[in-house]
């Protein structure tokens, strides 16, 4: 799941080498924190969060077999 977010994000940014995803887990949710270069923030969020929303949709489709809820957060 972590790799999926990283893979997608790398295709969208200008500085793929600065893309990093951290996975945090508690009993109910898996949180994927996406870190990108400050200049690339807009490229993974998009107008009115459209790109971020699309990434979340794809991730939640991929996590249908996961027991826990998967959340993607874009961290500054």
């Amino acid at each position, binding site marked *: 799941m972590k790799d999926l977010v990283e*893979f997608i994000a790398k295709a969208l940014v200008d500085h793929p080498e600065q893309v990093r995803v951290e996975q945090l887990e508690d009993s109910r949710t898996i949180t994927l924190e996406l870190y990108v270069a400050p200049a690339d923030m807009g490229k993974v969020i998009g107008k009115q969060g459209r*790109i971020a929303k699309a990434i979340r949709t794809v991730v939640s*489709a991929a996590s249908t077999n996961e027991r826990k809820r998967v959340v993607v957060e874009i961290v500054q």
Partner: protein
Amino acid sequence: MRMMEAAGKTVEEATQKALAALNLPREDVSVEVIAEASSGLFGLFGSKYAKVRVSEIVTPDKHMSDFLAGIMQHMNISGDVDTKREEDILKINVSGSKMGILIGKRGQTLNALQYLLNVAYHRRFPGDDCRIVLDVEDYRLKREETLRTLALNLAKKAARYCQEVVLEPMTAQERRIIHTALQDNAAVSTFSQGEEPFRKVVIAPKK
């Protein structure tokens, strides 16, 4: 992009070696000759091997199908990715098992993937006004038929009860299918209301 250098007695031999190692057909690579072979003096002294650099040609189409295949791999979905150019439209079709996951509720996931492919494409190849249409197992074709039937049924209802019928929010492409299906209808007219992404079609009886 994959590339490698190879040496051989002739340029051709070196190229063949590289192609075998990369496992690529001749038409998918570009060959750059680094050093020509020379037989040296009387074929004895200073004979040199030919050296070539063979690199894979990554076309936009290949780039996008690799990107989608990569996403599917990370999602644990196996399937075949096919690309086809139709002027300014790059059609990508996926077939295989577990395709329901790729489509999602009312094509939600499919539309998200299509959007991401378009964004990635234009980041990589700016200035190219190509549009990517992603389809899975003819889902869009079937959805179009469903929407057309739905439009005709609701048009009848709107005309019979002299009442506006408001449809659920749809994407621009889907709204267009409804509008097109009813544009020549004598009993109703159609328009859209609301803001994206909740914009929806209204079928209104003609007075």
